[in-house]
């Protein structure tokens, strides 16, 4: 009875069981139902002239994952169900990776930080059922890295065997959108470098390619910037809660080797109360009470952008930041500017009177100064949506806009002709739903209630309410974690596997997404992440994870 049942189940599942293993789903995929196991002598051959070190390192990590993931397949009976199939399986002895004819050999790290729309993530992967060599080809080492990531997801473990049950496998894959990101706020609470490394690892496993690092905010300034070290000296939570230039350089390299571009954000001119620790004269309404009159959260404080000294200072800091971060993209922030803060600030009002400018005109001058500092450094600026929807600020055409307040605002930004990264709080904010964190408010829920489930993010339509032409402006999207209620203790369970849902949406494209068929694969993502040391949460009881579809609402 038991063997028959297992066999029947395996057979029935075969037609879509490949789908259990891969995330994001490749855009072109065909699979069989033959078992294939890795030979004890399995090796990955790098057939690339002058292969860069980071490609060789990626190959070594892949080999390590293949033998060390030790993930048993998520079926009733786990790996034992496949015992017979494994014992009769052909052995795969090699994967050969090579670049397309004529492709220039560059490092993954260089490819990963190319201008967003010129990165080539595409690859083809072929694994014959006979055990003859598997072949991975791409136009770039970045594409080879993506293919290696896919390859490592295909294999399960049982009884010292590493195997797939779905050979032959043919994959032709490339992302639907060039921007697939994750944002982390390291200012509300601090995250040690090792937490960021682990997060970058997990991001790379689901092919996320941009780490949007909201590194500073009003609460703390943990970034040591050469030439401006007083900001962190006085503004970090402690001398040990600092990202040194060495930390940054290490993280940027670590990310780039894993196909990830690190986009730093220094939010200005709001969200800068902490700058006042080093430069009290630069900050209006610093620590003013009640904070609610001057800021969306405590402490209040915004840069006095009417002051030439502040404009110069800020532009110079952005120039210094540009040198620390090789990415072509850099965010100047620009969200939640509180006007009352400036209305009540004598310095600001005095300067406005003297110059005859309006606050909006002064904001424009400030923004042009900071953005031209970026332009001179070869960077494309990123801003939050208010900079185009609420303010009269002159921005260059290539400026990238992040829509966060509501997905409803995407169309208005598109009408202005700017490129867009989806970051809508109503779909992608990982911090919503944990209760209000402001004190003395016993009955309040989070401002962006309810919790954004993986299903909610996954069913987001990137081109809703957009014309075909406007749809071309969408670069992709990202999940975001604001960390008022997060620290290293809950980083993994808050982010994973939820953030994988936007990773697939923006890699595979909305046409391929379906919550019912996605769930078993997302279980696989979560269980594999745990095997690799990331504390992804359980989405369901294990009973459900072992029985795809059995816990669906109408099952």
């Amino acid at each position, binding site marked *: 009875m038991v063997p028959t049942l297992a066999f029947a189940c395996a057979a029935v599942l075969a037609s879509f069981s490949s789908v259990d293993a891969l995330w994001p789903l490749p855009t072109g995929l065909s699979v069989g139902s033959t078992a294939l196991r890795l030979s004890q002598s399995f090796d990955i051959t790098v057939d690339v002239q002058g292969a860069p070190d980071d490609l060789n390192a990626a190959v070594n990590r892949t080999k390590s994952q293949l033998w060390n993931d030790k993930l048993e397949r998520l079926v009733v009976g*786990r790996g034992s169900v496949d015992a017979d199939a494994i014992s009769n399986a052909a052995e795969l002895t090699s994967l050969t990776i090579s670049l397309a004819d004529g492709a220039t050999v560059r490092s993954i790290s260089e490819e990963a930080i190319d201008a967003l729309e010129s990165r080539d993530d595409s690859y083809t992967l072929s694994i014959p059922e006979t055990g003859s060599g598997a072949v991975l080809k791409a136009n770039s080492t970045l594409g080879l890295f993506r293919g290696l990531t896919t390859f490592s997801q295909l294999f399960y473990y049982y009884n010292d065997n590493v195997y797939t049950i779905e050979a032959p496998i043919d994959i032709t894959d490339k992302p639907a959108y060039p921007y697939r990101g994750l944002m982390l706020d390291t*200012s*509300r*609470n601090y995250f040690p470098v090792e937490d960021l490394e682990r997060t970058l690892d997990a991001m790379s496993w689901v092919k996320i390619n941009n780490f949007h690092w909201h590194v500073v905010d*009003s*609460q*703390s300034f943990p970034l040591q910037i050469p030439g401006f070290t007083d900001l962190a000296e006085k503004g970090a*939570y402690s001398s040990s809660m600092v990202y040194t230039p060495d930390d940054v350089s290490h993280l940027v390299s670590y990310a780039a080797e894993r196909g990830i571009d690190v986009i730093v954000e220094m939010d200005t001119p709001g969200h800068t109360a902490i700058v006042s620790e080093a430069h009290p004269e630069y900050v209006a309404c610093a620590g003013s*009470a*009640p*904070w*609610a009159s001057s800021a969306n959260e*405590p*402490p209040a404080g915004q840069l006095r952008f009417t002051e030439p000294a502040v404009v110069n200072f800020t532009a110079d800091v952005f120039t210094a930041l540009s040198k620390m971060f090789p990415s072509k993209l850099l965010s100047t922030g620009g969200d939640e500017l509180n006007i009352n803060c400036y209305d009540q600030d004598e310095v600001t009002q005095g300067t406005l009177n003297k110059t005859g400018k309006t606050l909006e005109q002064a904001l424009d001058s400030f923004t042009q100064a900071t953005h031209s500092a970026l332009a001179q450094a070869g960077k494309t600026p990123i801003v939050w949506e208010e900079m185009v929807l609420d303010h009269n600020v002159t921005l260059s055409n290539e400026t990238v806009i992040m829509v966060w307040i509501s997905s409803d605002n995407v169309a208005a930004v598109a009408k202005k002709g700017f490129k867009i990264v989806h970051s809508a709080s109503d779909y992608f904010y990982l911090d919503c*739903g*944990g*209760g*209000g*964190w*402001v*004190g*003395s*408010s*016993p009955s*309040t*829920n989070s401002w962006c*209630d*309810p*919790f954004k*489930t*993986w*299903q909610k993010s*996954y069913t987001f339509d990137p081109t809703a309410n957009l014309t075909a032409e406007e749809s071309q402006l969408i670069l992709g999207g990202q999940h975001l974690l604001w*960390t*008022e209620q997060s*620290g290293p*203790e*809950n980083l*993994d*369970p*808050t982010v994973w596997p939820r953030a994988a849902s936007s990773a697939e949406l923006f890699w595979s494209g909305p046409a391929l997404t379906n919550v*019912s068929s996605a769930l078993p694969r997302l279980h696989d993502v979560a269980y594999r992440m*745990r095997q690799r040391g990331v*504390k*992804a*949460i*359980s*989405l*369901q*009881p*294990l*009973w*459900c994870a072992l029985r795809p*579809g*059995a*816990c*669906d*609402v*109408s*099952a």
Partner: protein
Amino acid sequence: MILALKALIALGALPAAVLSLWPIPKSINAGTTFLTLSPQFSIDITFQSPPADLLSAVETAHYYLANDNLERLVVGRGAYDVQDVQSAKALSSLKLSLAEGAQVNSISAESVKAIGTRSEDYQLDIPADGSAATLTANSTLGLFRGMTTFSQFWYQYDDKVYMVSAPITIHDSPAYPFRGFMLDTARNYFPPADIIRTLDAMSWVKLNVFHWHVTDSQSFPLEVGEFPELAQKGAYSSSAVYTASDVQNITTYAASIGIDVMLEIDTPGHTTSIGASHPEYIACNQASPWSTYANEPPAGQLRFTDPAVVNFTTNLFSAVAKTLPSLMVSTGGDELNIQCYTDDAQTQAELTSSGLTLEEALSEFTQSTHGALIAEGKTPVVWEEMVLDHNVTLANDTIVMVWISSADAAAVADKGYRLVQGPSDYFYLDCGAGEWIGDTPEAMSWCDPFKSWQKAYTFDPLANLTDSQKPLVIGGEQLLWTEQSSPNNLDSIVWPRAAASAEVFWTGATGPSGAPLNVTEALPRLHDVRFRMEQRGVKAIVLQPLWCALRPNACDVNA
């Protein structure tokens, strides 16, 4: 500027002392004198033949004092206190004594006494002049509670361990005898190490009942000597099992740190996993659509009309009860699905032949299982449906757990039963993270929204009860159902939130100042709980940006 800030702290002398304690004692007088812990500090037991678990509790207290390494949560952290610490007197000992005539029992024996008869009160004095601190209680359990309080006073900076609020006089005792935490280990499995760590954290906030919802429809991880097949076939895997020795270790360890382990085997619903070894005992076993037969998949309930099932279940409870030191065992009884039995030919045939109604059969079943428990000297515990929705004869001393809604407590009290407050609208830790049932992209959790610590903290245990009903409330607990939880998020979903009810049920309606407990005063202390837990290896979440944690009340809504 720094001086001015210091003056502020001095003005707030009482709050500064109080900042470190959770739950806040019933009565406390605190000063503003700094006191360091002498490098030769010792905890001395002044009575003969102290039990082994008291000695190990003393060792643990020493360990926390030496290793918490918690810097005080003020701007500047420990550096802020340097001068005061330099000139502080040193405390060289804490003397533990029992009240005259008190029996010397082990903490473990005291912890599993009948609920309502445990003695947890203690008196703690820490003089400001460095002379010996004294801790007195009527039981070793009370001494254990007092040492827990003592260990919360101390901060560390630059190799000095110090407190900021001597002299201290505390008279403390709990408002309610039952202060619990429930963990479901059936939806997802938790290794014993996770349970041990959870017990530790519970003891730090003086929780005293671990309600272990050990089995459910999804898995049966409990090894029962006489019925090995239940876990063999019903556990998720052979490694996802609590062996007899695991259970023994957990109950023994819990008792040694003041916690009674109350096991629940939920019956007659929530039992599909029994069908893995005894399919003949289960009606609507994994029937489809599950939503017709159960509140969540998989469907399946014990055929309690079947005499064989009654015998089996009764014997199961007898067998389990024998292995547990607690005087309380829960037989569950929630969410019974009637349709499951209506559509079950065997149940219907048995009802026809016996002439019983389903409710009558349920009553017989329950009397049989409860009879077995009572025969083993246990008090049965049930979920509220057993008294509100069914006609089941229960012993008068049965304890009823309210879970569906806080509004149901009054109805349970109307029936005269003792009750434990576990209402989903205040105390369910799993709410608010989205629906976990598949193919429901828009659905939220059934018990949305998330129950914040503030929500739990503002629960009124006696709401809508008459004066004569109020004594029926023996306490309460926060609960974690684990459809979406596992070892990966256990600490972060439970802590520090579950400390909220720990204080509600220890301190009671009013704090030492006589004012009602309130979230504004509590938050700085709860930050302290969280940071100390982190130092002790429990991954409690941050409640606010560190900026706020260092500046009490600066992030309040009206600040």
